[in-house]
């Protein structure tokens, strides 16, 4: 589904990301782990063509993402607040996104009803997105990725700022959608969440993928050991 071929992203003299070869197959749920500045967001931004690769190619469904726009029809993404229109209400925002994918208001209302567990209380309030708390903004952004019947969903630290019950809901939702064959690429700092939901874990450090493994019962322990602070 997603392929990286000899991709490098260089800022000035610093290599932010260097990926020789990465294949993400349809139906995988990939968790990205790494410290701040490791290159997680850079990797996600390259898939979404938000930044150009310095070298190499990123493909989505065999098409180069910077050359075509086909991927936009089946890719749902939410990286940060910059993906929300601050002066719309949550409903209006979802309607806007739905409209781009030829859905109507009835579809949006049905969608909200189906996902009532995540964010429904404030959904119909006349508040603009810019006035919501960080957690509620995230919820709207995450819902928007699922609204469009995507084949792949890309999320950058979706659990940050979420309240406990929303975190559990989101985990279940991701598992459910994953079971239905939707591909996920999710970055997170929470090792427990990542190992719980993903079928494959990529560990990134200093712009390199240093570990690529299928999730097994030992993965969480391995990762925890890896990130253990070294006191001397």
């Amino acid at each position, binding site marked *: 589904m997603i392929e990286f071929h000899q991709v490098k992203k260089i800022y000035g003299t610093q290599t932010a990301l260097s990926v020789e070869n990465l294949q993400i197959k349809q139906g995988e749920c990939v968790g990205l782990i790494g410290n701040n500045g490791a290159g997680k967001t850079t990797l996600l931004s390259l898939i979404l063509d938000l930044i*150009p690769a310095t070298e190499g190619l990123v493909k989505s469904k065999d098409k180069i993402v910077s050359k075509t726009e086909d991927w*936009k029809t089946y890719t749902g993404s939410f990286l940060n607040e*910059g993906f*929300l229109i601050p002066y719309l209400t949550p409903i209006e925002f979802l309607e806007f996104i739905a409209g*781009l994918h030829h859905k109507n208001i009835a579809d949006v209302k049905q969608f909200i009803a189906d996902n009532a567990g995540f964010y429904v209380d404030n959904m119909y309030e006349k508040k603009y997105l810019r006035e919501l708390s960080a957690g509620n903004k995230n919820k709207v952004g995450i819902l928007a990725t699922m609204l*469009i019947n995507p084949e792949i969903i890309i999320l950058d630290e979706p659990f940050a700022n979420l309240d406990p019950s929303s975190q559990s809901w989101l985990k279940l939702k991701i598992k459910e959608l994953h079971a239905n064959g939707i591909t996920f690429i999710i970055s997170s700092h929470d090792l427990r969440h990542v190992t719980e939901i993903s079928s494959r874990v990529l560990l990134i450090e200093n712009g390199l993928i240093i570990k690529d493994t299928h999730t097994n019962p030992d993965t969480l322990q391995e990762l925890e050991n890896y990130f253990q602070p070294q006191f001397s």
Partner: protein
Amino acid sequence: MLSSLLIQQWKEKTRAPYWQKSIAINIFLIIIALYLIGNMLFISFFIDSILLDIFPATEVVKSFSGILIFYFLTDLFMRFFMQPLPTLSVQPYLTLPIHKNNLFHYILIKSIPNFFNLIALVFILPFYFKVVCTTKPAAFCVAWLITVFSLVLINNYLNFILKKYMLKRPSFIIIFILLIAGLFYLSGAEILPVNDYFAALLWYVANHFYWVIIPIALLIAIYALAFRMIRENRYIQNQQQEKKRNLGNFSVLSNYGETGNLLKTELKLLFRNKRPKSTLYVSLMFLLYGFIFYTNEKYINNYPWLIFIAVIVTSGFVITYGQFFFSWEGSFFDLYLVQKISIYNYLKSKYLFVSFFGILSFIITLPYAFFNIEIAYINIAIMLYNIGVNTIILLFFCTYNTKAIDLSRSPFMNYQGTSASQFLVGIPIFLLPLLLYLPFSLFGHREYGILFIGLTGFVAIILHKYLLQYVEKQFLSRKYKLAVDFRKK
């Protein structure tokens, strides 16, 4: 304590992103400021002879004291629109172990070194040293100066109070403006010689030294009021403002596919955010420019002037809004890059959006044709040109304007998002129509010149698809650069 606050204040100013980013704009602004200061100095030095001309029977110091009332009214008016409330920057200090009252005093005192107070110094001091000091006794001079500068500072703090109060009730702004205009009118029409009353007051205080206690007490009272206002408003940001909102949804546009969806969002951008909304109001004032020029014999039959005015009255909104086409959406530009939006439709929605306002401006200003029927022809031509050519020029040049705009801030004295390309883009917008017109007028066929401008616009409108595709190519080549710069806040 105070010194570290002041140092941080200095850092805030010098490290502000706009200051570091656009040196050209800052130099431009400094030149304008120096020019204004120079003018004020000049006026102040020579105002005695001017006043002697206007009021030959009155002592110069007295007539100057009289006109100061107009200065103060104008000053208050200008401050009201241009001087910002200095409240926001203390947020990080509120939880630190600093006595809160000190912080509020600090906010109020740091507002003193500003442009308006500087102008007051420049306007008053030269006259004071040249005329007042040389003709009046020392006690008078001291009392006069204390009174006048108390009034300057009263204006400084009165502005904050008025502002806070009127932001809650916008209708008061109109009353405020009418009041000031009314005072000007009454004394101009010699119904109520406000300046004479004011001069008499000032005179009395200056001649009875102990009366200076009155202006000083007034200043302290206003300061105390401002202090209380700031203290009461310190929590205001945390309060959830439950405003009744009348959300216009423009749902008619939902039936027009992707372009309609984008137009709907753009309309909401315009009406729901402070800065674009103020831009709309400012461009309404452009519509009124006609009254200044069309009523003047000098301009009414001068075609180049009429063309120039037509650009201002029919294209005001298109230009003021269009110069920030992409910058308005700077804070969520990434969304548009990853969503299923065709760039062509995105550009077309902007094209249609400003075209609609261009046509609207034309219709509103059509009654100007009563001054001279030719105005109607010229405005039609310019409107066509504006829609056909100017919008494309603006869209093209906006791909170079990579500064995002904070939608929630006021546009007055706000140069965020402004870059050198804005000044450059003014050249084709104002000069090209004149250039198109010129060859015809040289051969004495000025009506063909107007026709040619209109025709150019018309052809450009017919060809808009190709022009937009050209802009699309340009946009695609610039999109990463735009996106990268918009992400820098």
